[in-house]
């Protein structure tokens, strides 16, 4: 995802001299290296200092620039939280805050590097837009779409090596709209970010082994949330499952439940999230998800029972 971001960023910045990249001693892949080489004055490394990274971005934006801040998600938004809230959001400035490794992606680095409450925190701030693409192609799409947002954007990326999940998507990417990336009629997964891969694998298995036609919908825009789109899915499917790599509070699950209640949805609804815990488990990204209770074998059984 970070490669896809870097390449999309490079394409945008090449043709728009307002765009600059402010990093705090962490940088993205090859596309950014090319940008740094070609436009060194628009590549700003402030060092290990995230408050000035975000503060400077806001100052640049006050002068008409379009800055992207980039580092590991925890450091993009937690350390400089007040700069995010006041400098960027209160002043409603077009700063793109890019967080790499959202969720528990940095699975060997521990909770210091886990952004597991980021969607809740960023969504709660007025003016903020929260985007979380599911694969490299969608990362490129949201990066480009973010240029059309006049206020601040939090762009929650995965890391590297995510598979392509959207090449055969029945629906095209549309900013702010839920997007069906795998068709189905019985069960619908609502999900976002790298864990979408798990949803796609579960959907294939449910279809194969339980004869349940299962759709997967990428909710790449958490704020604004496509409420009409979600209402329609809650009305269309008998079983809806939210799968998210995020704390149980303030993410997609609770919002879908609220929409379901408000719209009088009659479907069966189940939500899966990370635990409300700092877990001391280290291993692969998959190991961490499993330790948080996001175990595909368990989810498969439960969803099959729910839909059966």
């Amino acid at each position, binding site marked *: 995802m970070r490669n896809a971001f870097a390449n999309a960023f490079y394409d945008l910045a090449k043709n728009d001299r307002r765009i600059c990249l402010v990093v705090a001693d962490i940088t993205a892949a090859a596309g950014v290296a090319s940008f740094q080489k070609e436009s060194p004055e628009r590549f*700003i490394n402030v*060092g290990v200092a995230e408050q000035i990274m975000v503060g*400077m971005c806001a100052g*640049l934006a006050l002068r008409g620039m379009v800055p992207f801040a980039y580092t590991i998600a925890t450091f993009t938004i937690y350390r400089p939280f007040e*700069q995010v809230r006041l*400098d960027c959001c*209160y002043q409603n400035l077009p700063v793109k805050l890019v967080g790499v490794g959202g969720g528990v992606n940095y699975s060997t680095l521990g909770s210091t590097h886990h952004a597991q409450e980021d969607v809740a925190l960023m969504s709660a701030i007025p003016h903020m837009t929260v985007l979380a693409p599911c694969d490299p192609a969608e990362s490129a799409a949201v990066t480009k779409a973010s240029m059309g947002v006049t206020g601040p954007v939090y762009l929650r990326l995965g890391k590297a090596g995510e598979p392509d999940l959207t090449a055969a998507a029945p629906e095209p990417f549309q900013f702010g709209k839920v997007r069906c990336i795998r068709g189905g009629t019985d069960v619908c997964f609502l999900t976002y970010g790298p864990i979408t891969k798990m949803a796609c694998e579960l959907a294939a298995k449910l279809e194969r082994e339980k004869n349940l036609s299962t759709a997967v919908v990428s909710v790449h825009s958490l704020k604004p949330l496509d409420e009409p789109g979600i209402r329609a899915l809650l009305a269309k499917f008998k079983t809806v499952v939210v799968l998210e790599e995020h704390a149980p509070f303030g993410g997609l699950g609770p919002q879908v439940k609220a929409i379901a209640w408000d719209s009088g949805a009659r479907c069966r609804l189940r939500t899966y999230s990370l635990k409300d815990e700092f877990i001391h488990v280290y291993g692969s990204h998959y190991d961490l998800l499993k330790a948080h209770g996001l175990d595909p074998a368990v989810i498969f059984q439960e969803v099959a029972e729910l839909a059966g």
Partner: protein
Amino acid sequence: MATPPFDAAAVQARCQRYRRRILDISQTVGALHIAPSFSCLELVATSYFGLMHRTGDPETEDTFVLSKGHGSPAQYVVLEELGVIPSAWLENFCRPGFPLATHPDYGTPGIAASTGSLGHGLGLAVGMAYADKLNAKARDIFVVMSDGELQEGSVWEALMVAPSFGITRLVALVDLNDFQSLGQTSKTLPNFYPMLDKLRAFGWECVEVDGHNPQAIHDAVKARSGTKPFVLLGRTTKGKGVSYMENVPIWHYRAPNAEEYQIAIKEVEGCNP
């Protein structure tokens, strides 16, 4: 067009009027930081009437950021005199239906950035200065800060990066009144102050002067080399001009009652620092 010579006496006269005006406003609203406004008044007024290139066009003129946002009355009275904000706004300070708050809000005419939480203004100014450098805009940015504000870590991140990025058109004026909410700044963190050598060590050009002396403020800023970002440390008195407010922490935020107001008005008439 030649720049007219700096008229320090006129700035002093203005500051006397401003103190009266702020006291008047204090009688209609409680949420007013009088003492912090009085300590930075000469720094603010000298910036506007002696240092800043003002064209009326925010695209070309110098920028002013009041990083110690609670001193907003000091900036509002200047903006009122310049005709940037209407008097009715000041007379209805902090009232529903009117835009002026205790802290300056971006979007209000004459306000370049939202402040109020300490430690934000300098970082914003560093970003603005970087953009100006990138876009070859020849203008200066003036930031008024408080000495208590220097305790915010974010200030030191801004101080750290600005010289390394070759930012030169940035002037920070620190209101060195030696007070913060709970007491004396130099007693709160005695090993942290004074500041001069620390700021120089960070790569800034730095001079300390009497912060109530417009001529001294003007001359020190004008004499800067222009090869580094510049900090002026202005020694000031919190509550300057009203004896019972001077260096008494409660006046950080308290408004005078009718009797106290009368005493204050008389005293500021005679205030000519």
